[in-house]
């Protein structure tokens, strides 16, 4: 019996990522953002999601990738966490894929340490690889200061 898993997918700097689709609350186009001075660099700011205040994390900064082109507004992938919803800012949203969870392989050791920390494994798709994001680790706050 294979373990079917649904993934919500997105692109960050042309890398194809997937997260457990059941953890995704919604996907939104770019939202007005209130920056928070003194916050850690990956925290882009706060958005008002129907009266709920949601912290937005820039996935490029979180994954130590180059900065996003300012002319291309990011997409919000709002995910559930223990401390309420958090929005992940990604370049572009992809399809929802249903894959066999058993097919996932560990990430090669040669990948950047930060990226390897936040990725649980790789799915080999026909045309590309999909890195599966470890949501818990990704949204965990890095110490301020």
């Amino acid at each position, binding site marked *: 019996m294979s373990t079917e898993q649904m993934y919500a997918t997105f692109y960050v700097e042309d890398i194809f990522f997937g997260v457990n689709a059941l953890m995704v609350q919604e996907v939104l186009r770019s939202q007005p953002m209130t920056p928070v001075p003194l*916050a850690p660099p990956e925290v882009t700011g706060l958005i*008002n999601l129907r*009266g709920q205040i949601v912290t937005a994390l820039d996935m490029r900064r979180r994954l130590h990738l180059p900065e996003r082109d300012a002319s291309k507004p990011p997409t919000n992938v709002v995910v559930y966490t223990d401390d309420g919803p958090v929005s992940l800012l990604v370049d572009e949203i992809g399809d929802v894929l249903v894959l066999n969870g058993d097919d996932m392989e560990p990430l090669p050791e040669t990948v950047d340490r930060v990226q390897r920390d936040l990725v649980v494994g790789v799915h080999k798709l026909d045309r590309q690889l999909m890195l599966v994001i470890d949501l818990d680790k990704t949204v965990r*706050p890095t*110490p301020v200061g």
Partner: protein
Amino acid sequence: MEDMDEVVQEFLVESRENLDRLDREFVELENDPTSRPLLASIFRTIHTIKGTAGFLGFDKLQSVTHVGENLLSLLRDGSLGVTSERTSTLLRMVDAIRAMLDLISDHGTDGDEPYLELIEELTAHCQGAGKRGSAYAEAAAPVVPVVEALADHEPAVVPLSADPVVAEPDPAPVAPEAPVAEATPVVPVTEPASVAPRADADHPKANEHAGEHVRSGGGDTSIRVDVKLLDQLMNLVGELVLARNQILQFAGQQEDPALAATSQQLNLITTELQEGVMKTRMQPIGSVWSKFPRVVRDLAVSCGKKVRIEMEGEETELDRTILEAIKDPLTHVVRNSVDHGIEEPQRRLEAGKPAEGTLRLRAYHDGGQVVIEISDDGGGVNCDKVRRKAIDRGIITQQQAAKMTEREVAHLIFEPGFSTAEKVSNISGRGVGMDVVKTNVEKIGGSVDVQSVQGRGMTLTVKIPLTLAIIPALIVSVHGHRYAIPQVNLVELIRVERTETSRGIEFVGDAPVFRLRGRLLPIVWLAEILGLPAERETAAQNVVVIQADDRQFGLVVDRISDTEEIVVKPLGPHFKGIEAFAGTTIMGDGTVALILDVLGIARQGALVSEERHRRGSEDEAVHERRDRESQTVLVCMAAGQRVAIPLALVSRLEEFPRNMIEKAAGKEVVQYRGRLLQLVSLASFLGLYADHGYSDGHERALQVLVYNENDRAFGLVVDEIVDVMDADFSAVEHSDRPGVPFSAVIGRRVTYLVDVDTLIRSTIDGQMAMSSF
């Protein structure tokens, strides 16, 4: 199974509530050992718990309550008298029941602890009844110790114990209304005056309460609601308030009368709904206080003291989140008062006070705030002891201590790491005390003050906001982003402009200050606090004067907008450790704004200045040794000479236009704060030629340092105020100039240290030629 859980839950909630009441009733019972309504109510509570525990299969709980019930029924029937020993045992039983309830709520069982000792003790008390004589004798005899304690108040307790009502059996212990009705002819619960005049005079509230519980069984006008649901409702109302704000803003832009009318309607309803929902979260402060009689009793017994607790305003309501937040601080204060404040009976008698100390709790509303006063008639703050302790602990220096007023000394108890308890007791005196109380109260936007009269007692006043969820706030902006400052922290708004007459923001060393009515107000740029570039050089600055703790500071912002009711929302975990923000809110246009934490900003500001201080000291070799000899001085120029005056001696810095100078009795004075301020030229005093700016061609205003001695004030006129610095007085050289006994190198330059005492003395003696300014 689901149903069973619900039954257990209900049992837990109900029992806990009843137990809280029991604590209070037991303490009341000690004051009024023959009160049958009290005994009946206590008996009923235990009986109910026993019954339900048996039904739910909690055997241990049942066996403990069973013996307890036996003892209580004997007490109620009057076959046994209430003694403090018996009360203690029964209170221990209450604790045991509580512990078992906790186990049930955590693990679903009442645990393995059989409480054999407790059961034995309870049984032993019961057996006492059989061996001893008649019910009357038994009832009267043990009461005596209690009566002795209260002898000066109430000699009438003994005869009362023989009152027929005691012996009268109570046939209907479970019916809530019955005892009241039955007892009315002899013991009207709501008017206990006829039975115990003392109790009535001293505990009017307490008795009212006793009456309330007995009545409480009757009404069904209230229902139990899960707190979570209320919180959820409050959140929704918060959302609604925001949506309302947005609609109002939108409606304001349209010219549609129907829309305007509807949105107005929406506005009113929302406001009313908000008030209504907020009311549902309100709880009387009595729900926290109800634990105190027991706490005080236990503590007083263990310290060998006699303490009576009085409460006023228990019905004062507070938002439950706030209530939750002040519970521990208040308990701590109460414990502190009993442990440190109220003296032993012997010492009280020696001091001419009644042996029994009084602890008074008072709560009332005052202008959108709730004021809670905790006062005792104990020894008050021992100023000498506090001073000594504070010096020992390095909190203040000897010189500072000498200058502090009694009030300032009393406030030292709020300093971290301060405790005056001679011996560390298990109650308090571990050095974590009042400072924690202060921080906790401030965390919820409150303040703490203390008034103390040595030997007579002290009063601690806690002021807290009614609610935390929706607060009025001032909206300011920096770099195009809006920030909210809670209204409670605001003092005033000022616009500082640099003009001919005003200097605007000045710098004392590196530290920006503004002269606000003669006082130096430290200035902080919000942008700098937030790590953004600040424009320090603009001609006009908007300054928000803020009260943080016991000091004020000016916060410079780009723009000051309006005040608004904002809904406070917490900041997520990514922002832990950022001191500058207290939370977030959503503005009328839907954007998110951050709420500033003024205490955090003040702390951050102080940190900056500390660092600056350290840097400064490294620069200057003289400052390397910062010991007791070092002192903060105000460096100024007088006739081209650098002079220094201890900063502590200068109460204010003032500027007076020259035309304000008047002559009175051959002295030059200015009218200052309704009094005459005599001016003394520092230059003339030093025997130097006083210029004071005449050579500049125009008349500059006089720079005056106001010096207070006893009730006289003098104005020392100087040319210019240079800086505030730390001077090392161990490296001074004697000088031969009169009035300046020493010179020192301060800030790399030779500076004369002014002997202000001699200066003032010679001024008073009139020895000094007062030259013109």
